[in-house]
């Protein structure tokens, strides 16, 4: 393997061995603390255009298998890990992670002090960075770092065409802003049949299908990049019950006049505690978000906070009192991460009148 480096905009440099992808990686550098589920993370479209640092140093232990894919491919800009396993072992192992990353064309930096990067990000917040060959001249590195930030990742990850899935009784219209496979699987397992729409489909078209409910998916990037989508959501509100996850949570919030903000370094991991304010119960959840709904912006609105993060008190779920809609910021569908959130899907089913 050749030598490579991750250079952050503040000038810090982290060296390692470089492979996978015959391109430079340029993007926002984020870290995730999950100790398992690397393939699910790699194929989660919400990470589109980011350089992802794994805090857990041993990666690739159980190889890869298509059943773990959450999206149609890996949308990472780059990948930074401590120790790449060269002898994966698991009965599901069909391909080594190294091969997977080569195949997916992901520039990967290995043998890196990922904890050092995490500490940096924790302190300074997410930051632009590049993964480049170690011998790249400084001026060239600076030029890459100076490139403008990329927006509108939803365009890249959403389905180009409408498709359907499942054959259950309830019909759910799924707005795909970069949806994870397991959300679709969950909805189907709860007795739904799904029509999945490209992110920019108009409300009229969606409603023409006369679904029992509308689902707003997770997805990458800043929700404020998507004014067109927000406009369409406004037109759907009140017409059908709505359930949203992650980006879907932020978009519905914006559609209802709430505000969102960019968090310092976000929540990315599978150990995040969330409190359900209605029951007082704590749930351990999978999370992957860099933006959140601003609590102050909810003042005077008919929106109730239903879930908060036990770590920092930020909003993890809201419900709308004027129309039958609720959303969560975290990932009840897990993959990677812990289950135990089925009640949210059930609530959606109930709202659609299917609970009997």
């Amino acid at each position, binding site marked *: 393997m050749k030598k490579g480096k991750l250079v952050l905009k503040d000038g810090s440099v982290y060296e390692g061995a470089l492979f996978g992808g015959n391109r430079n990686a340029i993007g926002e550098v984020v870290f995730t603390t999950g100790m398992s589920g690397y393939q699910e993370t790699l194929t989660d479209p919400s990470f589109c255009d980011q350089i992802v640092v794994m805090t857990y140093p041993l990666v690739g232990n159980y190889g890869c298998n298509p059943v773990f894919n959450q999206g149609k491919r890996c949308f990472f800009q780059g990948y930074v890990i401590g120790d790449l396993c060269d002898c994966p072992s698991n009965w599901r192992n069909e391909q080594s992670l190294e091969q997977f990353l080569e195949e997916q064309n992901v520039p990967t930096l290995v043998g890196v002090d990922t904890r050092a990067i995490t500490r940096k990000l924790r302190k300074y917040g997410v930051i632009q960075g590049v993964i480049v060959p170690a011998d790249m001249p400084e001026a060239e590195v600076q030029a890459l770092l100076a490139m403008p930030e990329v927006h509108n990742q939803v365009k890249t990850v959403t389905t180009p065409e409408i498709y359907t899935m499942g054959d259950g009784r309830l019909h759910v219209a799924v707005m795909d802003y970069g949806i994870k496979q397991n959300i679709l699987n969950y909805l189907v397992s709860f007795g739904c049949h799904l029509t999945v729409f490209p992110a920019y489909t108009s409300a009229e078209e969606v409603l023409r299908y006369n679904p029992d409910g509308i689902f707003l998916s997770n997805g990458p990037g800043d929700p404020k990049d998507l004014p067109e989508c927000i406009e369409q959501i406004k037109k759907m509100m009140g017409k059908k019950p709505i359930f949203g996850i992650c980006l879907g949570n932020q978009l519905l919030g914006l559609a209802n006049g709430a505000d969102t903000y960019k968090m310092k370094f976000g929540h990315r991991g599978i150990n995040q*505690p969330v409190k359900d304010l209605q029951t007082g119960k704590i749930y351990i959840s999978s999370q992957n978000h860099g933006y959140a709904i601003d609590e102050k912006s909810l003042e005077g609105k008919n929106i109730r906070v239903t879930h908060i993060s036990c770590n920092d008190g930020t909003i993890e779920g809201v419900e709308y009192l004027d129309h039958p809609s609720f959303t969560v910021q975290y990932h009840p569908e897990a993959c990677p991460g812990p289950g135990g959130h089925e009640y949210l899907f059930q609530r959606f089913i109930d709202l659609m009148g299917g609970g009997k």
Partner: protein
Amino acid sequence: MPKLANIKKVLVIGSGPIIIGQAAEFDYAGTQACRALKEEGLEVVLVNSNPATIMTDVNIADRVYVEPINAEFIENVIKTERPDSLLATLGGQVGLNMAMELEEKGVLSEYKVRLLGTKIDAIRRGEDREYFKDTMEKIHQPVPESVIVETIMAACQFGRKIGYPLIVRPAYTLGGTGGGIVENEDELVDIVQKGLSYSPIGQCLIERSIAGWKEIEYEVIRDAADNCITVCSMENLDPVGVHTGDSIVVAPAQTLSDKEVQMLRQASIDIVRELGVVGGCNVQLALDPYSDNYYVIEVNPRVSRSSALASKATGYPIAKVTAKIAVGYNLDEIENAVTKKTKACFEPSIDYIVLKFPRWPFDKFVTADRTLGTQMKATGEVMAIERSFEAAMLKAVRCLEIGLRHLEMPELKSLSDDEIRAKIKNIDDERCFVVAEALRRGITMEYIHDITKIDLWFLSKINNIVKMEQKLATEELTPELLRKAKQYGFADKVIGNIVSKDEFEIRALRKANGIIPTYKMVDTCAAEFEAETPYYYSCYAQEDEVEVTPRKKVVVLGSGPIRIGQGVEFDYCSVHCVWALKDMGYETIIINNNPETVSTDFDIADKLYFEPLTVEDVLNVIDKEQPEGVIVQFGGQTAINLAGPLAKQGVKILGSSVDSIDQAEDRERFDELLTKCEIPRPKGHTCFTVEGAFEAAHDVGYPAMVRPSYVLGGRAMEIVYNDEELDHYMKYAVKVNNEHPVLVDHYIMGTEVEVDAICDGKKVLLPGIMQHVERTGVHSGDSIAVYPPRSLSEHIIELIIDYTNRMALGLEVKGMINVQYIVRDEQLYVIEVNPRSSRTVPFLSKVTGIPMVDVATKCAMGVSLKEQGYRAGLQLFPDYYAVKAPVFSFNKMSNVDIVLGPEMKSTGEVMCADYKYSRALYKACVASGINVPHEGAILMTVADMDKPEAVEIARGFEELGFKVMATKGTAAYLKEHGVEAEIAIKVSEGPNNIIDDIKAGIIGMVINTSNHGRDADRDGFKIRRSTVEHAIPCLTSMDTARELQRVMSVMRRRRVVSVVALQDLEDEF
């Protein structure tokens, strides 16, 4: 929910003495729990018979009862203290069983004591096999299918239904006799046929065999509001079949996909919820390596050894959180003590790998069966933290202190490839080393996997270590290669051996190239949040995150894994040393690697480095921290052994100097000192040849104590009585040569006396003197010790004070000194001197009220006794007696002779105090687990030389109403001297023999001494082992027998149960 309102006073039950399977982890858990309860303003009453613990310090609980953990005694404590509640899930199985017994006996309801945390019913659901199975079936959690059969037909039917392999366990046979794993129906028929005949009730349990599956554990915490989190997953390197306590364990699980991780996590949570556990709980699962099938193996509805490991592995304080939950808090109301910003209701995420390696006592029990199976055999364990498996494994090997620095055993080198292949099959303590050796020989991973079922992931990592060895051997040692080798965890010494350089040359080369370790923090959250835990591990990475302060610092070396001869008492000393230094205003830094102990709790020292205790690893920390110096005298032999090498590298040893240590340990120099101080010792010589040994023995006179000079701690030490025995010893027990001389000393049979004293360099403080019940020849750690002494003359006591003074000053001791003496015919002889803290320091500190380690630490740092407010000399004896009794784990070790001798065999100790000596000793016997008989026969079978002493003892038991039985020779002798004894039939004499009588419960106690030295006495060995298996006392020293008989006689018509809190010892008596 906030704290429960009606709780004011909580009774906490500890786990008692250290035995195999229940070690220091409960001192750690119990100490955390007591502190957590006190933080809540609750009054804490503690019962624990183990004096060597921090938990039984008077500042940990408000009322400390060092009393037997036994329903009668605890009821008495309840009666005296009237606690309103009981916390029993932090005292191991002992504590849990005690709570169940108290509940069953109605004690809890009678005194209105409420059980905190997990309720009795939940405990039963977890503990009772059938109840557990039903509960699991109810929630569709699979348990291995099983059936109890009485016919071969029924067994075959089950086999056809379930498939093979199956495990057959005959009911009620000891040690699973007659059972086994069967692969097909023919084998099943064969084994069941035998099993049914072995079983006294004609039953066999047949169970699906899951041997070879992956063994996964989860630590789960649930609060009363049903919030439930998992602290950590753990994966055993050894597949199902080896007790988890004997397995190499990594955290988090390594070979599981997220799907599998989540499946087992959810199963664990579902189980804990259904059981209704409130607090910490451990769930063990078996996962098929080739599918998503799994089985629930076991649940421990309490804080366990694995909880301690998970706590140290993640930084999440399970015991503390369990205690807070028990008094009513929910997880989101408890602070995360590590980050102090987040709450306890989260799941730790770690950014390193943790590896636990067990420490087995086979170095002491050389005859023991080393096979690992369902019975745990390890006495302790070490833990290593690193950023790769390879480095974690090599660090752990260095932590073990088994004379190895690498995953390589020199003994295996001489074996042929075929022998290595054959050895891979053995599931024993050496398996990992054999695997590495096999890989070195080019035996494939697949071959090893087929036999061992160890996951290929682990094998490939071990293979990476082997590949690195080869790389170092064949390539030039460039800085890049050196760095890579260090990242793989190779010690400087190991690299040096491969490239023909010494350890310090490699060290210099490393430093010249800037290859120095970086230290990372254990923070529960993979750096997501800022943490304040000063808990660090080393690795070779880019960034070091330790902030070195400008304060004055001292490094305290811990004592590593718990093993026979070096137990929890040294951890006690390390912790107290840290506290004393903190008190003096120093920044304290502790280096240790034992995950079970209090010293490795992150809030003990100002900084904790979780590292091996080798010169390289310690020097690295010293380079980093630049302390004033290092204190070695509290970390047992582990730390003492490091003093010389560290001093040689320019490190300042605080307290007694390296020269003092050397003077006490080097025989010639020690003899010079004694001569100079005019102190007598048993006559002895150092011998370099067999002939020399005979000459020496004749010169000093038999009996003689013989031992190799190069091993410490009583290893291979024997008493020989004649030429024949000496010849046997020289032939079979040692190899004598110029480098490894043998020491031959005259053996003086007499009373053994032990003193722990403190010297500031000018004055000597003797907190107390302990007298042993057993005569010289029984290792001091295995003797019953009594404080204050009962039968020493004023003359001897004055000599003890005088000699101790002379030696402490002669050795220029600054801190602790331990001296062992023999008293014989009003003469005092010295047998051993150690200028360090000893095993008896916690005991003596507790019963004298003098915080000995604290005082000694201050002396070591230059504060005189006078300045500390202590008067030199022997302190006044109290009006009470305290007895320390040894505790053994023989029932865990088959094929080990239980006879007491110069080699230490006990794993733990208990203490009891009373104003009446007899009661103190009787209580100590009860606490140590001796089932003092009340009826039945006393069997005596003693060596010729002990027969005269046997008469009086036999007569005593006869007077107490016991029937005396004896083997022919002993019986004849007793009869001659007027004691009628029924003749017992020796094992070799045919049926209805002694062992049958023991089995039948006719014999209630055995007094057995054997002819010296050799293992010839097979009959005696069988009798002794059978007493272990039937849990009846077997006394192998005439002194113990005599003392117990006297005490039984005194206590006959007296109250046995009487309890006293340590806090009241001074006032009450």
